[in-house]
Structures are given as structure tokens and as C-alpha cells.
């Protein structure tokens, strides 16, 4: 089943074609990697997919529905979540509170029931706490739930962003360079976690530079250059694709 499909998706900034007529189809349960040299449009396309930018042209279909141009919070309701390249946590909130925000779109207590302390609101609050703690446990941060997010070391902050995204109960998870700044051990941990996430039924689309990670866990890879798709295939196919090698010209990184 196709979970995400883009049709001629484009994003122009004035004269610059950051994303140029990209067609992409991702199947449910896949781990798809999006790679390309710096400036190839990977983060931009992620921002368009997650609703932060409006596309200049083209369509986005998510689980069959046309979600082109919808705002990020609506996409979360549909089941799409993301993490950021530059970590965007809620620094002055606790680890647990950060994760709880993830449950926001899955719950609906209105202010009146909150103010009057109605049972419905209280039950929902308990539900939120449970789901948030599950997400934290999944990434291994449950014991730190009362710490302020800003006090976590870098690697754990990345894990918290992941937990928060998982708490939204997504069907598709967009990850923007999740391994950036992580040491080899932390990257291994992340590696294993991402596979576990997929095994729970979540489709992954990750933008990454770390080729070990990419070649190791991806089912399928899409390669961008100058905003356009230049290749698509399995890790083996991509590694031996001459156009891809040329795009990365000079980098030995492909031979993971």
C-alpha cells in the first residue's frame, strides 16, 4: 500500500529551484532514505512534506488523501510526524512534558472540561501520561522523565525528539539527519531503534549523510541533486550507480 506519494512536487525560492518536480512513492512499512550532496534539496523537501513550506507546484498524497498545502498540525492528525535537523525541543519543559505534547493531536479535552475537572478530561490526562511514558521507555529515557529537556546531553536530546514524534502515534515518520552529531555508539543505538520503529508498523523517511546508517537500514534510497531526483533504487543499486557517484564527486563515502 502506498503511504506517501508526491507528484511533480516543486518548491521555488524566487529563481532558485530548491525542489524540482520530484515524483516519489513510498510503500507502507518501508525504510526510505533520501540522500544527496549538500544543497540538493533534501531538507527543503522534508519541510514541504511536513507542511512547513507551501509547495510551489505539485501534489502530496498521504494514505491516499490529498494533503497538499496543509498545515503541519493537520498533517500530524493525519499521522505524519517529523524530527528536525537542528534539535527543536521544548527546553524549559521536562522530558515527560515534551513527550506529552506529542499526544496533543490525539486527544481533545476542551477547556471547559479541563476547568471543571470533568472525569473525561482526567481520564484523557492519564492516557496522555501513559502514552508519553511508553514513548520515553521505547527510546530509553523513562528514568529521566522529570529532568528539564535542556539539561540532557546532546545524544539524549535527539532521542527525546524521536520519542516526542513517536508519541504522536504516526504512520509515517520523517527524520531530518537523525544521526547528526552522534558518535558511532549512539548511531548504532539509533540504528536499532529505527528498525524497531519500523517493525511496529511505522514507515520511515530519513534524510541522512551517514552512509553506514543509510546503507545499513534502508530498503530503498532516493537520490536528489540540485533539487531533482537523479536515481532511486536499493542500496546496492545506488552504490554502483555512476550518476550518483558523479553527483558526490570525489567523496569516498558511497563505498560504505
Amino acid at each position, binding site marked *: 500500500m502506498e503511504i506517501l506519494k508526491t507528484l511533480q512536487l516543486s518548491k521555488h525560492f524566487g529563481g532558485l529551484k530548491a525542489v524540482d518536480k520530484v515524483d516519489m512513492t513510498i510503500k507502507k512499512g518501508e525504510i526510505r532514505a533520501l540522500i544527496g550532496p549538500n544543497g540538493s534539496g533534501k531538507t527543503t523537501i522534508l519541510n514541504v512534506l*511536513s*507542511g*512547513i513550506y507551501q509547495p510551489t507546484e505539485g501534489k502530496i498524497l498521504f494514505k491516499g488523501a490529498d494533503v497538499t498545502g496543509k*498545515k*503541519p*498540525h493537520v498533517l*500530524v*492528525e493525519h499521522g505524519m*510526524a*517529523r524530527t*528536525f535537523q*537542528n*534539535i*527543536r*525541543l*521544548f*527546553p*524549559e*519543559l*521536562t522530558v*515527560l*512534558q515534551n513527550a*506529552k*505534547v*506529542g*499526544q*496533543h*493531536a*490525539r*486527544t481533545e*479535552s476542551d*477547556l471547559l472540561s*479541563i*476547568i471543571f*475537572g470533568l472525569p473525561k*478530561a482526567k481520564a*484523557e*490526562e492519564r492516557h*496522555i501520561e501513559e502514552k508519553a511514558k511508553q514513548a520515553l521507555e521505547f527510546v530509553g529515557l523513562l528514568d*529521566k*522523565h*522529570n*529532568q*528539564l529537556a*535542556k*539539561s*540532557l*546531553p*546532546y545524544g539524549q*536530546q535527539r532521542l527525546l525528539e524521536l520519542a*516526542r*514524534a513517536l508519541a*504522536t502515534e504516526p504512520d509515517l515518520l520523517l527524520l531530518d539527519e537523525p544521526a547528526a552529531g552522534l558518535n558511532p555508539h549512539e548511531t548504532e543505538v539509533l540504528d536499532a531503534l529505527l528498525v524497531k520503529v519500523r517493525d511496529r508498523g511505522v514507515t520511515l523517511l530519513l534524510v541522512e549523510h551517514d552512509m553506514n546508517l543509510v546503507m545499513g537500514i534502508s530498503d530503498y534510497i532516493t537520490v536528489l541533486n540540485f533539487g531533482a531526483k537523479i536515481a532511486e533504487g536499493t542500496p546496492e543499486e545506488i552504490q554502483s550507480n555512476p550518476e550518483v557517484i558523479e553527483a558526490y564527486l570525489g567523496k569516498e563515502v558511497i563505498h560504505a
Partner: protein
Amino acid sequence: MKVVLILLFLALAVAAPIVVVSDYWHNLMVLAVVYAIATLGLNFTLGLTGQLSLAQAAFWGIGAYTSALITVRYEVPFWIGLPAAAAVAALFGVMLGFPSFKLSGHYLAMTTIGFGIIVRLVLQNWQELTGGADGIGGIPAPSLGVLDVDNNFKYYYFALAFLLILALVAYKIQHSRAGRAFQAIRENEMAAEATGVNTNRYKLIAFLFSALYGGIAGSLYAHSAGYISPDTFSFDQSVVFMVMLVLGGSGSIPGTLIGATLLTFLPEWLRFLKSSYMAVYGAGVMFMMIFFPTGLWGLLEMIYGKLTRRPVEVLSPLEKTEEATAAKSPVETRKSS
């Protein structure tokens, strides 16, 4: 511990006008309660959601004038004046919420300031409606059936009841899904939106509550003072509310109450400074920002933490630095909500 503090606070609040008998001080106590309600309102926008609103005095004034006008001109009781004040103020609050979608920081601040100045000019110049610079007098005292709340002593307890209810409501909202949504917007708006929070909607709600509380405070003020005039509801007063919030502890309800109370009584206690009082006040604000940005409440929490030998990390947007992701040690903990 929390329970002890609350009981202590209640005891003090209830005992205060009995212990201190002069009507002059009772008047100040009423004012402190009114200010506290208004500042609690500001906490929704500035404290929780991080929206730099400098229009709180305008909402306060809109509430005061609405309540005063309809009770004086149409002879309806206070109990109609109050909800009317709240509703009209809330309407303006929502109006001011829309610019906050696209504007932030200084742009939003300037818009709210501009709004406040326009409101004051209207209050001052629209003679037929507001009485202009002469103000409105003869505002009736609220009536509780057999009892009229017609002196400061009674009014204090009357207003205190409102404050306690409103503080409880604010507390419930803050520690709920909605409160987390507000704070998420303050902490990182883009991430909040990308995590499923409808940021535009919550900004509107924040402004709505801010204005609602301001309007209620305005009505209470008008009916206690008996007379209101446009000068009271100025940009300077919005600044006072902001300082009350920040000094007490932005983002925290106890902090807000402390800040409002303190800054109501401070001019009295510092009487000996005479005319240099305001200058000292200004210096004090600068000093607080440098050394105690988490406000008095933050300071108290820190002291408490040291006393109980448990490090307590304090919640305040004002300590945020530009280093977004720096790791810190030692590890610090805080009660979650």
C-alpha cells in the same frame, strides 16, 4: 509542602484586613487583588505562550469602562456589568490575537502597544460614549442581595473570592494539555506546530483568556473605586503589569500573585525614598533581569532547593539563552505536570 504553602497563603490573605485596620491599607489590598487578577491574565499570553503583549491595561480599561457605562447609564446591576465587561474585553482580546499569527517579538509588541494607545485615545476623546477626560463617576457598588459591597473591607473579600476562583482556573489550565500547548508555543513554535499543536488557535485562546481576566479585573476595579478616568489605563500601566509578572515569576501562578502583591505595596513600604522611589524601581527591574530573571518565585524555589538539598531547576522563559542545545551538568530535576 505545596498544601502547607497554600494554606499559609490563604490564612494570610484572609487575616490581612483584620490585622491591619486602616481603610487606606484596605484600599491598597483591594487594588492588589485587582492587579493580581489582571496580571494572571497577562500570564496566559506572556508567561505561558511567550507572546509579548503590552496591551493588558487596555483590556483592563475596556472591562472597567464597559462595566461602568452599562451600570451607570442603563442602571443594570453589577452582575450584568461584570460578564459584559468580560465579554467585550474578550472580544478585543481575540481581535488582538489574529496579528499574533504572523507577528512575533517586537512586531507583536508594537502592535499591542499601538492598540493600547488607540484605546486610551478613544476613551479620552469620545465624549459621548466615555465621558472623555472627565471619566465616569457614581459607579455603583455590587449588591449581594441583602448586603452591599460598599466599603473596602467587604470589597477585599469579595474580590478575593474572584481571585481564588480565577487562580484555580488558571492553575488547571496551565497543568493540562492546553497549558502544555501554550508553553510548547513559547518554547519552540515551529516544533509545537510540527508536533500537532494548532498554534494559531492556541494563540487566540491565550489572548482571549488574557483579555477575559483583564476585563474582569477592570470591572472589579471600577465598582470598587466608584470613579474611573482614561489616564489610569495607559501604556505605563501595561508596563506595570508586565513588571509584576516578570518580577514575581513569569509563567508561574504563585509568582504572579507575589509579583502583583509586592508591587502594589512596594511604593508604600518604600515611602521613605520619597521621589526617588520610581528611579529605584527602574533600577530594581534591571537588577532583577540580570541576577534573578526567574523572578522572586524562582528565587524562592532555588532557596527551597538548597535548603532541602535537592537541586530544583526553575521554569522560566527568561533564562533561555541562545545556546539551544548545550548540555548542562549537574543533572537537575523538577516536578512534572
